[in-house]
């Protein structure tokens, strides 16, 4: 008798829960009436509105560029930071560093935003040309994303078998090679997880971005929250649907491409080994 796949059912339920609001938003993006209160008719109008609103499109592109870039920098700095913490000899120092690391995670956005604003205006008074805008937002996003990267990478460092590193050393590897060929590959899942978390934090952030931006640089979050007073038009639903679909395609596409590469490489290596075995 085949065992009932309770696990599949459970996962299916979780996915339904996760995607329910998303589908709700997508459903209403086709709504003829202006809001999400009732569905009055099908229309593409909201989508055409998106493409005609060049200001909004610029904001979207800026938002994603910011997210990709800040997550990249945060992941790099965070990964090395995690290594720095892990290799610190004293446990008490390690715990202190870790606690300091988490401060930004625990602080409410408003406090972070206000503090960074003060910081950047101080810099602005020292350096004439520096004013709030893309740079200040980028630096802030990198800053608040680093802690979560550390939190994602550190457990993997703890899992790591130190004897691997020792073995590599014995075989003559220098520091750079050890990091590049042993440590980083082992950490990859954590690093990638950290990247995605950082990316998410950047996309989602409102308060910090709002406080430190200026000069016409705005992100989707800021724009959406600012529209709340007037009511968020379905144009935003349409935009979110497009972005969502695009991300989905990117994610699925990336996954299947990398799978293919892996299997191709494995097949190639297997062939190579077979040939050498025969000789």
């Amino acid at each position, binding site marked *: 008798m085949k065992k009932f796949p309770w*696990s*599949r059912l*459970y*996962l299916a339920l*979780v*996915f339904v829960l996760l995607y329910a*609001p*998303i589908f*709700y*938003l997508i459903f209403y993006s086709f709504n003829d009436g202006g809001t*999400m209160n009732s569905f009055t008719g099908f229309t593409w109008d909201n989508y055409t509105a998106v493409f005609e609103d060049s200001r909004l499109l610029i904001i979207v592109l800026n938002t994603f560029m910011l997210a990709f870039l800040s997550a990249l920098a945060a992941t790099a*700095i965070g990964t*090395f*930071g995690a290594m*720095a913490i892990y*290799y610190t000899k004293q*446990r008490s120092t*390690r*715990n202190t560093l*870790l606690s*300091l*690391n*988490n*401060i930004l*995670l*625990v*602080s*409410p956005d408003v*406090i972070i935003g*206000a*503090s960074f604003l*003060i*910081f950047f205006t101080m810099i602005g008074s020292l350096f004439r040309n520096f004013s709030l805008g893309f740079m200040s937002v980028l630096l802030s996003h990198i*800053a*608040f994303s680093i802690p*979560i990267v550390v*939190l*994602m990478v550190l*457990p*993997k460092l703890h*899992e790591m078998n130190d004897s691997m590193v020792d073995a590599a050393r014995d075989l003559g590897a220098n*520091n750079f090679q050890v*990091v590049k060929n042993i440590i980083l590959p082992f950490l990859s*899942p954590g690093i990638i*997880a950290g990247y995605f978390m950082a*990316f*998410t934090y950047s996309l*989602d952030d*409102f308060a910090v971005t709002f406080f430190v931006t200026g000069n016409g640089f705005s992100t989707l979050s800021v724009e*959406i*929250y600012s529209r709340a007073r007037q009511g*968020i038009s379905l144009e*935003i639903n349409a935009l*979110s649907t497009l*972005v969502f679909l695009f*991300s*989905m395609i990117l*994610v*699925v596409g990336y*996954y299947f491409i990398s799978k293919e590469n892996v299997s191709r490489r494995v097949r190639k290596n297997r062939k190579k080994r077979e040939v050498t075995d025969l000789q």
Partner: protein
Amino acid sequence: MTKIRRLYAIPYMFWLVLFVIAPVLMIVYQSFFDMNGQFSLINYQSYFASGKYLTMTLNSVWYAFLITVITLLISYPTAYFLTKLKHKDLWLLLIILPTWVNLLLKAYAFIGIFGINGSINSFLTFTGIGPQQILFTDFSFLVVATYIELPFMIMPIYNALEEMNPSLISASRDLGANSFETFRRVVFPLSLNGVKSGVQAVFIPSLSLFMLTRLIGGNRVITLGTAIEQHFLVTQNWGMGSTIGVVLIIAMFVVMILTGEKKKGGKK
């Protein structure tokens, strides 16, 4: 190794000083000033002496605790079952995907779903049960807050479970343990690091939720986040706001000590 390690660590240390230590010092400094800019302990007095802020703190801690527990209960099995799937990396990414849609929009969607004339109530009416008040209850608040936090808990637990050596499970089975015992004595303890990361990433931010308390909770429960927003923005009383910030930071240190790295002694 040490020299190179110092080199790697420089950007991180730089960040730590500029963006963590400096702002924290500033926040602590500000907490000692009252509304008129005079040095005073009145903020701390207001905080600890009045029942108001202590109640708020208790509320925040209680709800953050509930959210964390519920999130953990849902996330752990999810992460566990995920590791058994083919294409598991793909499914994991699909779990993260919804978090990229704006929070306010998702909250609005939930308002539509939970509303008195919304999707769920339409379904309930259809099945004859009749509409229920879902919004502005603890239930809806916890559901939506958990929804927001789920991916942040699933991720680290999944990573921890993924890395586990399957031969350990086989070994446990060989020694005669059944599934439950294997889980309790082998799987769960080894995934504890992931669970701790998840708890840290969920409990701590949940303490200062304020948007959801308003949108879904209708401000039925007041948390520290609400007070902070008020002090930083409306009354411009950054001193009092900073005081609450200091309390949160201390709370974080406490949580870290409780869930942090324990001495690596001999195993039992």
